[in-house]
């Protein structure tokens, strides 16, 4: 099992610190949700966990090794990423894009074997994207592209998957489908560890084992959804425009707007 953790790291771009002194460790088989307002640093954390940015201070460790010392190819066999609003080269077919997930597994001049093609097809099956296989990605909708990228990360067969807003362009049906899939893969003999940045607090509360609420570049609260999504925390981080109640069926916290357009 692969462990990934952030040890008291300050993260950012250039001279600017976005996230200060955060610590975070994902347990194998866990689905962790990163929540917080726009610009709070969710994507920055995802980028540091995939070595797109190096910490200004502190460390990011994969299996106890500093992530900066792990060659990219080796890292890409352990950590897969679904980026936020990915841009795809429009001339490639969806199948070719998903097949790119197999690249870390291939040698220099090696072509995809039957085994690679089968895994690719399995990944498209799991994400209901088979019917898109020979369509060019330039013709696909935002939601379809999102699903194709999720298929690609499945084809990559990594134990850790980082997802940055994987449900942003999806309708509620597809959102549930995607999160069910990821949750299911985490549950299967602890197969997958997922770190998911989510805007939707209700989805985060219902799918994640643990939530990390980020505010102004720091961890505001961390723990089980019921402990993080409280009326107090939500008001402190998001303002007073919403209220928190307990979902009658799941018993988990849910956030709804407080409709009052007369008050400022």
């Amino acid at each position: 099992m692969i462990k990934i953790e952030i040890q008291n790291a300050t993260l950012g771009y250039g001279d600017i610190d976005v996230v200060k002194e955060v610590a975070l460790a994902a347990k194998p088989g866990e689905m962790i949700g990163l929540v917080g307002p726009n610009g709070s640093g969710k994507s920055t954390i995802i980028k540091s966990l995939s070595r797109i940015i190096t910490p200004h201070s502190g460390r990011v460790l994969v299996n106890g090794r500093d992530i900066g010392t792990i060659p990219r190819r080796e890292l890409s066999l352990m950590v897969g990423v679904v980026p936020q609003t990915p841009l795809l080269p429009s001339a490639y077919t969806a199948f070719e894009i998903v097949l790119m997930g197999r690249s870390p597994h291939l040698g220099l001049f090696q072509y995809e074997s039957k085994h690679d093609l089968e895994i690719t097809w399995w990944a498209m099956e799991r994400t209901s994207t088979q019917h898109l296989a020979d369509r060019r990605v330039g013709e696909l909708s935002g939601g379809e592209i999102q699903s194709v990228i999720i298929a690609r990360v499945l084809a990559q067969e990594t134990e850790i998957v980082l997802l940055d807003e994987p449900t942003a362009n999806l309708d509620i049906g597809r959102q549930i489908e995607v999160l069910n899939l990821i949750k299911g893969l985490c549950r299967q003999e602890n197969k997958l560890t997922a770190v998911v940045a989510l805007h939707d607090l209700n989805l985060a509360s219902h799918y994640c084992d643990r939530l990390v609420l980020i505010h102004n570049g720091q961890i505001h609260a961390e723990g089980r959804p019921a402990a993080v999504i409280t009326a107090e925390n939500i008001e402190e981080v998001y303002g007073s425009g919403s209220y928190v109640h307990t979902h009658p069926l799941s018993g988990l916290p849910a956030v709804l707007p407080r409709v009052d357009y007369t008050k400022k």
Partner: protein
Amino acid sequence: MASAMLFPRRRGRVYAIAILAGVLLAVGAFAASVGSVDIPLGTTLAILISKLPFINIEPTWTESFEIIVVDIRLPRVILAGVVGAALAVAGAAYQALFRNPLAEPYLIGAAQGAALGAVIGFLLPIGVTGLGYGVVPILAFIGALLSIFIVYNIARVGRLLPVTTLILAGVALSALLMAIVSYLLTIAGDSVHGIIFWLIGSFSLSKWSEVAVALPVVLFGVGVIMIYARSLNLIQLGEEQAQQLGINTERMKIILLTAATLITAAAVSFVGIIGFVGIIIPHAVRLIWGPDHRFLLPLSILVGAIFLILADILARTVNAPTEVPIGVITALTGVPFFLYLLRRRTRILN
């Protein structure tokens, strides 16, 4: 298995490579038979085959025919093929690395940078002496590398390289470089005629000694680019996604830009500036056989070589005995294609 059904295109592209390799040989043989002295295709073939190792054919042809085919036309045909392949692959590599469909040695100033370097090489006293080709290709390479570096850094907006800024920076730098070339020509004195003739692009001076230098350099550069064929597909996803799929993008960019610029410089050093090959060929190949660089690159090599050999046949027959500069032929076919791409591209962007 349904997934296996999705890959019939792969087999088709393998056949295409085999067929085009045959076409290349046929076009090459044809090119060696046409010219100011007409040598029948059969005789040309017999002469060429007799030169292969372990084959003995009783000559039925005059010695002058053999000299024309083997010493005059063959190096020219091979050099045209090598240069066509080099420019096509360099174009494909620039387009992939910059993720910009209009990146091309001629349009981004690499060819002009090479030309300036080469002209300086011609004018330096050491270039004329026994060193021969030594200094010209090296200075051409340095010139091309510097122009790529300048254009890339001027055109870059953050991590993106927009079509418009790339073309504008390329055109502006090319204008500057060619102005310097013109100035150097005015002070060049006696050697100016030869340099101008070389500059506008021609294969008429091709010799085996040039093939012997150009061929290994181009083979080496193309080989390096081919190693990265799959990585070139991944980098189309953008640098972040490519890194997340295991590519060391910084190292890859440096190696591939150097390799593409090296083969551009080799091509320019020996035949002058030939524009638009690097844009017509990869795009035509992409339209027919798709964007996968593992096929795009070898197919571009073959189609580029065939294209430039054919263009050279036109160049020396259309107005015979006067030769039309080959850059004129490639521009006449390339510019309409380029404008079509530019138009289509801007429509997509809007």
